[in-house]
């Protein structure tokens, strides 16, 4: 009797399960492509994460309006990591296990990105990071890609410029974040190649409100010819202000981490004369017509300004390129099969993006070189392209 009930129940359950599986399979064709994202919309890196979020949302809506990708709509699942690596890891687990996304874009900072790398590697899901440091793709990790220029590229570009000016003695000042430290390390290792001597090397803490003691030491170091700051966000503004307040006048270089209008307005007059490497996007209007990125850059700038009524930063560009590389790979793969999409991302070639022209390979999961940078100088509160 009891046995009978059990076997009946088992049959019922199995058939119900079969129906469910069939229904799920049938529905798959119309199911949206799920793009997962975690960005530092709040917290210390919010000035990066915020434009990234806006860009992603704007272009996902636009792609959907134009009929989606391979006949499917895109669903964007986005979490705010609050610039916290632990939260980022937790949200990525949620994206992988709960939301079951097909691809993950994001990770505003290097810290958040590195915290989730083991997770995506284990789960086997394509992941394109928007964070700066070179360690993300060096050494190459199977499932991990990134779009922004690395700090190493930036240092090379800066050293090229310093060398062209006939200078060699550099004072280095860096923050303590992941990007800052990576940039500082690169500044040391690359110095020899460009015949540059680091004569002063100072650091400051995250969120420091006063850096005059360190800058005073640099000021009192003899023979300094140029000043290089590694860092981004509010820190770089404080550094620029304190530099000016101490009456320092040496050529002042910052990284592409400061390539945002907020840096210029935040620093007030203190940003005048600072040189930095930046994506072509920043000076789209000044580019020669022959520049391959000019059309796209102008278009992106106009779109962003029209939608959000705020000046453009290059950070939104990282998100744009990440999204477009992902969409291109899915289109070429014709499905959202993780391995196929991953392989197609790796085959990205001559993709003209906002940040540069990408050609990836199994050895290079970034695909940019120093040509993707232009040197700009801040003049009269605006960017001036340097020839």
């Amino acid at each position, binding site marked *: 009797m009891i046995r009978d009930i059990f076997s009946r129940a088992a049959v019922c359950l199995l058939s119900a399960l079969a129906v469910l599986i069939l229904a799920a399979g049938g529905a798959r064709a119309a199911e949206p492509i799920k793009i997962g994202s975690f960005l530092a919309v709040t917290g210390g890196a919010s000035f990066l994460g915020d434009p990234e979020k806006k860009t992603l949302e704007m272009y996902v809506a636009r792609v959907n309006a134009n009929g989606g990708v391979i006949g499917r709509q895109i669903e964007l699942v986005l979490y705010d990591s609050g610039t*916290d*690596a*632990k939260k980022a*890891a937790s949200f990525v687990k949620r994206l992988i296990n709960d939301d079951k996304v097909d691809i993950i874009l994001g990770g505003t900072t290097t*810290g958040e990105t*590195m915290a989730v*790398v083991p997770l995506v590697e284990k789960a086997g899901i394509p992941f394109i990071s928007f964070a700066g440091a070179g360690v993300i793709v060096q050494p190459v990790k199977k499932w991990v890609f990134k779009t922004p220029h690395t700090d190493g590229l930036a240092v090379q570009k800066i050293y090229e410029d310093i060398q062209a000016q006939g200078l060699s003695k550099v004072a280095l000042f860096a923050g303590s974040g992941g990007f800052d430290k990576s940039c500082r390390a690169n500044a040391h290792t690359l110095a020899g190649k460009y015949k540059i001597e680091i004569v002063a090397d100072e650091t400051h803490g995250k969120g420091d409100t006063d850096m005059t003691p360190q800058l005073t030491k640099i000021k009192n170091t003899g023979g300094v010819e140029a000043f290089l700051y590694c860092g981004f966000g509010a820190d770089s503004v404080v550094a620029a202000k304190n530099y000016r307040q101490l009456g320092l006048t040496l050529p002042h270089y910052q990284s592409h981490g400061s390539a945002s209008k907020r840096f210029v307005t935040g620093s007030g007059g203190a940003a005048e004369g600072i040189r930095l490497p930046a994506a072509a996007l920043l000076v789209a209007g000044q580019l020669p017509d022959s520049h391959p990125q000019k059309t796209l850059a102008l278009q992106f700038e106009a779109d962003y300004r029209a939608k959000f009524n705020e000046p453009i930063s290059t950070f939104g560009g990282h998100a744009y390129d990440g999204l477009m590389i992902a969409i291109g790979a899915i289109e070429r793969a014709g499905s959202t099969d993780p391995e196929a999409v991953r392989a197609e991302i790796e085959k990205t070639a001559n993709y003209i993006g906002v940040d540069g022209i990408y050609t990836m390979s199994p050895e290079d999961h970034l695909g940019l070189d120093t040509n993707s940078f232009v040197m700009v100088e801040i003049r009269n509160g605006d960017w001036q392209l340097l020839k």
Partner: protein
Amino acid sequence: MNRFMRLATPRYGGMLGLAAIIAVLPAFLPNSFYFDVVILVGLNAIVCIGLNLLVGYAGQISLGHAGFFGLGAYASAILTGNYGWPPVLALLAGAAGTGLLAFAVARPIMKLRGHYLAMGTLGLGIIISIVLTQEVDLTGGPDGMPVSGFSVLGWEPSGVLVWYWIVGGLLLLTVWLALNIVESPVGRALRAVHGSEAAAQTMGVDVVHYKVLVFVVSAVLASIAGSVFVHYIGFVTPSEAGFVHSIELITMVVLGGLASIYGAVVGAAILTTLPQLLTALHDYEMLGFGAIMMGVMIFMPKGLVPTVARLIRDRVR
């Protein structure tokens, strides 16, 4: 006391209830993300139980307990990662090291009272987190470092379900040990220190000894939870040891209820899941979180569990 009445006590009813919840919960968790949240609840609860022994029972505030959590976390990360120690040994070494440090600073720190004690513990926690942030060669600096998986004699827990049972078991064990302490002469001495130090001393309670003891015990528990945490998460950053995390921990304890072992568990459960629930609020998340914190504390100053327990008791009478 008859059998039925016993079910109303924390020792029998509470432990049974908690064990039952831990046993049946997996049936209601749809996927590994939910398991993840519950595992974090368990680990936070372990830290909070220790912290509640210090704050709720002995009446000594600590705004720096995340420092001990971070020490355990980094001890495991560094000893297994850089020196190839077996994880169990690293965990024990971390706990012992943290205990020693806590013991060394306990005497001067436990001399402080009230807000001075708050400042002292806060400063200690911040110093620990700054050291972890700055010793880049050892700790990977502000971006943290990856941590290998856990293993005992070649066996490696894999999958959230295994971790779930491990943490569930640890939590039950911690609750049992904590209840034992609370209901023993040691627990009475701790509460006496809270009630009146002068009277406790004249009753023969060595106040300094017990303050040091409970400080060390709570630090060791935090350290162990930190070790387990990093092996589970697979990554550690200095924010685990930071001021914000310390504040989260003390908030869990106070919100759940001071001097209540289950209060610590409930507080950890609420404050760990709340941010996940509030993601739906988007831009209003922080606003909502702050408002909930203030609201609960204003209307239930004794915390959730003691307030609800009193309501039920009054209803029964």
